[in-house]
């Protein structure tokens, strides 16, 4: 089973891009266009990782991150924040609230995929479906072992 990734993003073009880029790498992708929908899907669909935008209508990414960390089921779920908020203080806030990774827009497909892969590897999740190309710089020791 490929890893399941939930993208919570209100900008349709940004969502489309992330979804396409990750599906290309063999991931299964779920999407949500606002914080509440994202929270519900995070709890019901048990994704392996969440890509979280910050500026969302209603509940924003920071609030959502706090909610996810507070619930036992999602307390350790890998979260990659992907936002156009580029201030150092925003990154600090995100990481403090429990995000594992903070990527600033604009982010290239490679950056996005690398971030996701790295996070999943740390969590011991198989990064992508079998047979798919794994970027060369990730194919070292621990990853191979975990693949077995």
């Amino acid at each position, binding site marked *: 089973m490929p890893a399941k990734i939930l993208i919570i993003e209100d900008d349709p073009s940004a969502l489309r*891009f992330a979804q*396409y880029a990750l599906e290309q790498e063999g991931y299964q992708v779920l999407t949500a266009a606002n914080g509440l929908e994202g929270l519900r899907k995070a709890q019901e669909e048990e994704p392996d990782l969440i890509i979280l935008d910050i500026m969302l209508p209603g509940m924003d990414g920071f609030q959502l991150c706090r909610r996810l960390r507070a619930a036992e089921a999602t307390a350790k779920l890998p979260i990659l924040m992907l936002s156009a908020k*580029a*201030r150092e203080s925003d990154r600090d806030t995100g990481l403090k609230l429990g995000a594992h990774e903070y990527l600033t827009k604009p982010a290239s*497909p490679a950056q996005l995929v690398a971030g996701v892969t790295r996070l999943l590897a740390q969590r011991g999740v198989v990064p992508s479906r079998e047979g798919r190309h794994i970027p060369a710089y990730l194919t070292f020791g621990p990853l191979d072992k975990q693949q077995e």
Partner: protein
Amino acid sequence: MAKILVVDDEQHVRESLSEVLVDERFEVDTAGSGEEALKKLGEDGFDVVLLLDIKMPGMSGVELLDRLREEQPSVDVIMMTGYATLDMAIESLKLGAYDFLRKPFDKDVLLASIGRCLEKRKLEEEHKQADEALSILYGLSKELATVADGRHMADITLRWVKKAIDCHVAGLLIQKETEKEQRWQMMVGVPPSTGESLVEEVKQRTIAGMETLIDHAIESDRIEVSAAEMEGIEGELLSHSGSKLQSFVALPLVADERTIGMLTLGSWDTDAFDKQDLKILSTIALANEVAIAILRMRVEEALAAERERLEAIIASMTDGLVMLDRDYRVVTINPALERMLGLRAGDVIGRPTFGENPDPQLSPLITLCRTDSPGEIVLSGSPRRVLNVYASRVSDSAGNYLGEVRVIHDVTREKELEQLKDDFIASVSHELRSPLHSIRGFVRLMLEGKVPDPETQREFLTVVEEQSQHLNNLVDDLLDTFAMESGRKALKRQRVSMKDVILDAALKLGNKAAEKGVVIDTELADGCPDVEGNEEALEQVVTNIVDNAIKFSRQGGQIIVKASSGDGKLLTQVIDHGIGISKETIPRLFDKFYQADGSATRAAGGTGLGLYICKQIVEAHGGKIWVESEPGRGSTFSFTITLASATMHQPATME
């Protein structure tokens, strides 16, 4: 010459003594008994009594001596008697006789005794005068030491002088020095209800006396003259009213080797002032008490002026200020600090700011800030206040540490502006990065060959084009915003037909509306009079609002653009029946980068700056813009612009 009374019961003794004394040019009188002597002494003043006989019929010499000591203590008595015994001599001297001589008298011894007696009297008199002058000086200087103004000083001086010397009027002329000019202040001491002519006479004479001393003319109209009342001579005035001065004395007051004033006395008696008076006067003048007081007064006036200036500066400072003594107790705080911290000077002066039981509001300003570096203090509460505190030590000219001064600069507003600026930059960055993210992402995917399907390629390229367009709009709006904010966008004002503006906008947006099945109707009442404004800017406002109305209208909805005039203004309204705006959102709707619904607006290509720019434009025209809305039922955007005056046709530049 001294006057001598010879008392003896024997006539020849009286005669022979008189002869000797008259030869020596004394004024001599005689008495044959104690009773006669008392009578003569009572009538006329004598300096010396030669009491030749202790044994006399009736009142004895000793008895007479006793009476004299009581009744005429100023008369000196020299005893002379044939019963020259030691006991007698001692008793006489005990009773106060000046000397004791033996009869028959030796002329030389007698004259020597009288001479010594007169010498003694002279010394006594001088001593008495000096005493009087000294006591006046003492009283005068003691009172002058506490005086700060010229009028009061003159009153005191004149009162004391009057005590020592019998005069009817007195004057004190003081040179007052200010930074700009030299002024003279004249105090004239006169009896109550004296005519002005007398005051003027004293003034003129004093000035004349002064001018001989200072070698140049005093402009008499630059002299302030005020009359002080002399005590206790009102009665005399009645018999002398209108009389001219007969006697006049003037004494310069010298300080620092310069004549800084003059003390004058006048009387309507001829020869009213004798040598003795002058002596007392010169003692007073020489001792410089008055002159010193004048100098001190000048220094104090200068200090008071300086202090006042300093207090005015401190009070008018916009920065707060607190002065502390060596023990960190509050010496003073200024009104700015009172306002800043909401406290009253009266409540905190004298309170400690350090150590035990310090003032809770002032303490942080003191303890968190050292003299070597300014401190920033954030006061909790709403709004959160940010204060910069600068400390400095205060020492006197000798380097003695006196305390500290804290100057408190309220930077709340600066901090808020800084924050606003930071937020704006962050918002701009965010808004630019979002479309760039999609553009770069899709382009990258295609460059890496990850989008083999032509349909998907087309889809992605369309998004890239849209996002580029959005970026373009954003840059335009940002430039407009910057221009409006910096006031660089000078809007040329001229007569503008709002009718044309509205119809143009409706036409331009017609296609976009039609795509959504939305109809734009116009209702232009009263032929829609022209306004005074910038056509391009007003078009931008109408287009922006109508564009928004289309975005938030439902499929098949109606938009009405209305214009009506009144009160010298044209009111333009854009009414939609769309989704409406929540009450909480309305106050922030015209803010920069505020988007009522992030996703919907962005999807519709909004930059978050449109309404902000509209507001800037309308306000630059002196108009108002506002919105009324009911969620679910639609919104009405309204704005007013001043009507063009009848004569207006030439373009003019609006500030």
